[in-house]
């Protein structure tokens, strides 16, 4: 077996919730040594504020949301407010190649852990700051969560049926966009460092990351003066193009037809019903013009099948179709199973938890998910003494003085 892709890379996270930690998690999945730094007095917010908790009983080591974001990491606790706490944090930074932080802008500077100071200690350091609005500008220090930033960045306005209410994108959607760009930025900076020896400070605003996913709405407004509106499940150049009801309670299947030829295939698949023979449905323009009627007729046909049956049947006929997987279904989805997305590992307080693998497979250096999310402060001794080479005496002293706490 090859060494892991990121073996030897050292990452220190002064981070909590999603955007910072999941960036580190992806690096850890591919072999980086990642340490998640918390404090016993103020743990990662996902440990305390964010259900689900195992057995529905809150507890710092019982949060499923924390678990999903933090497998394969070491967890240490440093009280940054204790005398010597900041100095200890700096020693961890001196050890690291990469620092990831997602505090409100200015926080690291106030703690004496800003890039200027840290790059003095560690000149080749790559430091990623990821936050809502970016490190500067009039709104930089405004607090915010991803579940609301998706509204400021345009996603909410674009989601829903034109005659119905808007919809939230469920969770901190935009945080995970920030994660992707964070991983990309860190790896690009590390490559640059390999070639030039230079470190890097990276300032990511999740707001600006999110807008990368909505570029066309900006060009449409700037070039044509039009505001992009929500459109249900419709698409300008395809019909039918929708999510149709199926057998079962609240079960659905997506299906779309992008050409007249595909429409003819669909007619055959439906058993050539009389309504579909109407010439008005033969062309895209005709199907778009009569789309309400088309969707209603389609729904009558799709309702005979389960989503999985319909998906298989339509795909076998060469058509695009996709069952709407419920969340429970993603754990049994055969394609996810084939890709080994879920890796069940025993967690000391939660029992078996299914950690999530990456969406990409690397032929030579696959991800290795082999350690569950850590308990709070679980690796204090192992990390400081074995990985950083601190003497046991000094470690005990720091514990007694509650610097490691």
């Amino acid at each position, binding site marked *: 077996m090859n060494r892991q892709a990121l073996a030897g890379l050292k990452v220190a996270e002064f981070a909590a919730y999603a955007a910072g930690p999941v960036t580190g998690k992806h690096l850890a999945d591919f072999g980086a040594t990642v340490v998640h730094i918390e404090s016993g007095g103020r743990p990662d917010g996902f440990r305390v504020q964010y*259900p689900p908790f195992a057995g529905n009983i809150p507890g710092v080591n019982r949060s499923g*949301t924390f678990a999903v974001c933090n497998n394969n990491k070491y967890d240490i606790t440093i009280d940054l407010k204790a005398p010597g706490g900041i100095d200890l944090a700096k020693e961890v930074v001196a050890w690291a190649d990469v620092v990831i932080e997602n505090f409100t802008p200015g926080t690291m500077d106030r703690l004496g852990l800003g890039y200027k100071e840290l790059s003095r200690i560690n000149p080749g350091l790559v430091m990623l700051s990821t936050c809502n609005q970016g490190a500067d500008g009039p709104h930089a220090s405004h607090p915010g969560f991803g579940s609301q930033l998706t509204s400021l960045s345009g996603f909410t306005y674009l989601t829903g049926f034109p005659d119905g*209410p808007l919809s939230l994108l469920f969770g901190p959607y935009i945080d995970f966009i920030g994660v992707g*760009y964070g991983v990309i930025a860190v790896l690009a900076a590390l490559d640059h460092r390999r070639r030039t020896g230079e470190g890097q400070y990276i300032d990511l605003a999740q707001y600006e990351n999110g807008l990368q996913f909505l570029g066309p709405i900006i060009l449409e407004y700037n070039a044509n003066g039009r505001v992009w509106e929500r459109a249900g499940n419709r698409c300008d150049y395809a019909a039918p193009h929708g999510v149709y009801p199926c057998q079962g309670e609240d079960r659905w299947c997506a299906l779309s037809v992008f050409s007249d030829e595909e429409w003819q295939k669909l007619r055959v698949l439906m058993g050539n019903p009389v309504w579909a023979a109407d010439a008005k449905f033969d062309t895209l323009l005709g199907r778009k013009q009569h789309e309400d009627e088309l969707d209603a007729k389609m729904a009558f046909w799709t309702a005979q099948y389960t989503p999985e049956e319909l998906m298989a049947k339509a795909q076998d006929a060469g058509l695009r179709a996709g069952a709407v997987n419920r969340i429970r279904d993603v754990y049994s989805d055969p394609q996810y199973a*084939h890709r080994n997305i879920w890796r069940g590992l025993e967690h000391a307080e939660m029992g078996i938890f299914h950690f999530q693998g*990456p969406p990409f497979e690397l032929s030579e250096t696959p991800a290795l998910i082999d350690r569950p999310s850590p308990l709070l402060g679980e690796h204090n001794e192992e990390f400081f003494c074995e990985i950083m080479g601190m003497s046991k005496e000094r470690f005990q002293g720091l514990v007694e003085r509650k610097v490691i706490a």
Partner: protein
Amino acid sequence: MASQGQQGLLEGYRVLDLTDELGWLTGKIMGDLGADVIKVEKPGGDPGRNIGPFYHDIPHPEKSLTWWTYNNNKRGITLDITVPSGRDLFLRLAEKADFIIEGFPPGYLEEIGLGYGKLHQLNPGLILVSITPFGLSGPYSNYRASDLEIMAASGLLTLFGSPDRPPVRVAVPQSYMWAGMSAAMGALIANYYRGVSGRGQHVDLSGQASCLWAVTPAQANWDVLEKDLTRDGEFITGRSTTGAKMRAIYPCRDGYINFIVYGGVAGRATNKALVAWMQEDNMAPQFLLDKVWDTFNIATVTQEEIDEIEKPIAAFLATKTKAEFFENAIKRRMLGYPVATAADIVTDPQLKARSFWQEIEHPELGVKITYPGGFGKFSGAPCGIRRRAPLIGEHNQEVYREELGLSSAELVRLKESGVI
């Protein structure tokens, strides 16, 4: 931050981009970081150039705003890789490439003699990135899917929309974005390994799995509690152990506001600040003024309590405009934002102050158009748009003549035979 003239972080890398809309973003991101990305289109151009909207509503392959958005920072050549003459040229390009990104159906490159084995033999350091809806192998690998089907199968769609309507997608395809961004992550992890070992590899990206991260923390709710979360429209769910849900979208005078009653430090401060603001307008009922926010715990709140709190908040927010709310949210350090439209976004003072927008010249149209700029700011390198998307075959001369050394007579022959 970085000044003009500095080199991008990925300067010096050559990327060949043979993707369709599912994978456009990967090359765009690498281009933002300074890589030399060459979009290889089939003669006549990428069919994705026909996706609207179009500049001034003129449907034309050189005027697709969607294509422009995701194909800037790329040079463009045309090449028919299915015929021996084209295949030969492609292999000459592949020999010198660092990354090839492709989005053909699984097995297609092998079929035409350009599979990973062949490319690896030619160029052992090459990183081949394959971007497909479901991945290169497995029971769904040959299934076809557009954005809607990928979103559905990923698990994300079940979380979007109102309970009384079908699940609903975002009006701008999102699975293509997740796929393209995630593929760039995989490519750069492989690149790190190449930097250490000198060895290339094959990155196999699944569009379906790319979207799965965005369901977080719904998957954890199933894994830990067997609680199957589903769409709840304007409400946020899964935040309280009692199952209470909170309203997130409130109508206001000229649109909508995203406001959520949260707990935690920021949430409690927000609730206090909002009640103080309501009081200034005499719209804060006594029970809200009396509320002890410091002990308010969102993780254990009941639906009854939440409903009671939200009612006067809704009445208050209905009297405000989006801009008034935004101004006050900033000033009073409250969580919450307007539900912005494109028109709101382009005037946001924060984005302006951070010089996010970039004016890009389209000389063939004689106009400049403002684009979203780079995804991040780097202390020692630029990140953003350096060139508009290419016209069809715009860089054929540059690439084939100047780099591969073909003569103009050879170029003419290739054009006449439909290879380029």
